[in-house]
């Protein structure tokens, strides 16, 4: 049952009349559900803006969110995004809006003034809201689980360890190297070193857009771990801008061999392993 224009202007008048009381109750109820995880000033500001937008929308006779309710919609979008980024649940976010109903009912004294049926209906309404919020929260959680599963699968897909040559394995790193991925890379690499009996491992960072101290630390740890297992690591794919950044940042790779390209790294590994005939053969083939 949509709001009629007359009803919406009556409601706007009610909002005007009980403005302070409704705002206060609204803020208080939302604050109770957010349990101090949002500053009071921030919350006051948000509710004040929402209240104003809601009142103006009603006063203008707009009773639908789609279409003319542009300002309310923009505010709700902003609020929802901010809450999501701050880690609030969907229920906690939606309650920020639903809370105005109870604030309105209490402030305008609907419970006493109107019939018993009216009071019952309002209580029933908030109970149904709760049921709706529960289904929504469960739904969102199920969706998030799907996304988390996919992210995990992607993590495994994105970190292959490939055999480049007899005794030489390589890990081409692409994208962001966070702690979780670094852990997967290290485990994969160490296991592959054992499985293939390779004495050389090349970590190629061509696909890593920025090498900061965290990335460097992860790479260094992997190199040290590989060394403990008797393998030598070579870091390749250091582009000019990355080299300059690493120097300015002050990161030192110590005695770890680093190369500009994967090909250089492979040549280095083959030379070190005494497979120089293989290198020569490869070079000869290229020249023909």
């Amino acid at each position, binding site marked *: 049952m949509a709001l009629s224009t007359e009803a919406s202007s009556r409601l706007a008048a009610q909002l005007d009349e009980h403005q302070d009381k409704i705002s206060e109750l609204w803020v208080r109820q939302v604050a109770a559900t957010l349990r101090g995880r949002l500053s009071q000033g921030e919350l006051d500001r948000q509710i004040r803006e929402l209240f104003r937008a809601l009142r103006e929308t009603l006063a203008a006779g707009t009773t639908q969110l789609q279409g003319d309710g542009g300002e309310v919609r923009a505010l709700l979008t902003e609020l929802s995004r*901010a809450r999501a*980024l*701050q*880690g609030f649940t969907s229920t906690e976010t939606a309650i920020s809006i639903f809370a105005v109903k109870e604030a309105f009912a209490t402030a305008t004294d609907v419970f006493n003034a109107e019939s018993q049926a009216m009071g019952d209906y309002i209580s029933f309404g908030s109970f149904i809201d709760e049921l709706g919020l529960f289904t929504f929260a469960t739904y969102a959680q199920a969706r998030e689980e799907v996304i988390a599963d996919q992210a995990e699968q992607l993590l495994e897909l994105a970190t292959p360890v490939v055999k480049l040559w007899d005794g030489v394995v390589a890990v081409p790193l692409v994208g*962001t190297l*966070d*702690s979780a991925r670094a852990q997967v890379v290290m485990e994969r690499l160490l296991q592959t070193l054992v499985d293939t009996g390779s004495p050389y491992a090349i970590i190629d960072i061509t696909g890593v*857009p*920025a*090498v*900061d*101290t*965290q990335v*460097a*630390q992860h790479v260094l740890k992997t190199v040290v771990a590989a060394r403990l297992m008797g393998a030598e690591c070579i870091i390749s794919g250091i582009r*000019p*801008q*990355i080299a*300059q*950044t690493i120097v*300015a*940042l*002050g*990161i030192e790779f110590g005695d770890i061999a680093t190369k500009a390209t994967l090909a250089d790294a492979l040549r280095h590994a083959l030379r070190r392993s005494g497979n120089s005939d293989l290198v020569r053969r490869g070079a000869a083939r290229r020249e023909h």
Partner: protein
Amino acid sequence: MGFAGAADAGETIVISSDEDVVRVRQLTRTVAVRVKLSLVDQTKLVTAASELARNTLVYGGGGSAEVTVVDSGRRRGVRIVFSDQGPGIADLDLALTDGWTSGGGLGLGLSGSRRLVDEFDIQTVVGEGTRITVTKWSR
């Protein structure tokens, strides 16, 4: 603040997880490309942004990063303000020393970032938070 140059409205990212650090990095790169920083300067600024955003998350307990385009009249640049309401830094000189870390990092994030940018300003109050402003100008 003692920075020269006019600034237009910036874009703010709330930093509360590792993914947000990635978002700060991506936004920084986008803006750096827009003001035509060289590839080396882009990489340096993005790396500094990555370090400082992670510091905001790990040591400041989360906060925000605001990325703005600044214009000195002569050249354009990118300014990023990182702020948090964390514990603050008790000994700034020590924190800016190469190789010193209160966490488990390499101890180069803060000191290294300073070398990656053209202007570096840090305001910190123990118990109230830290605010770091960095600027990189196009050449």
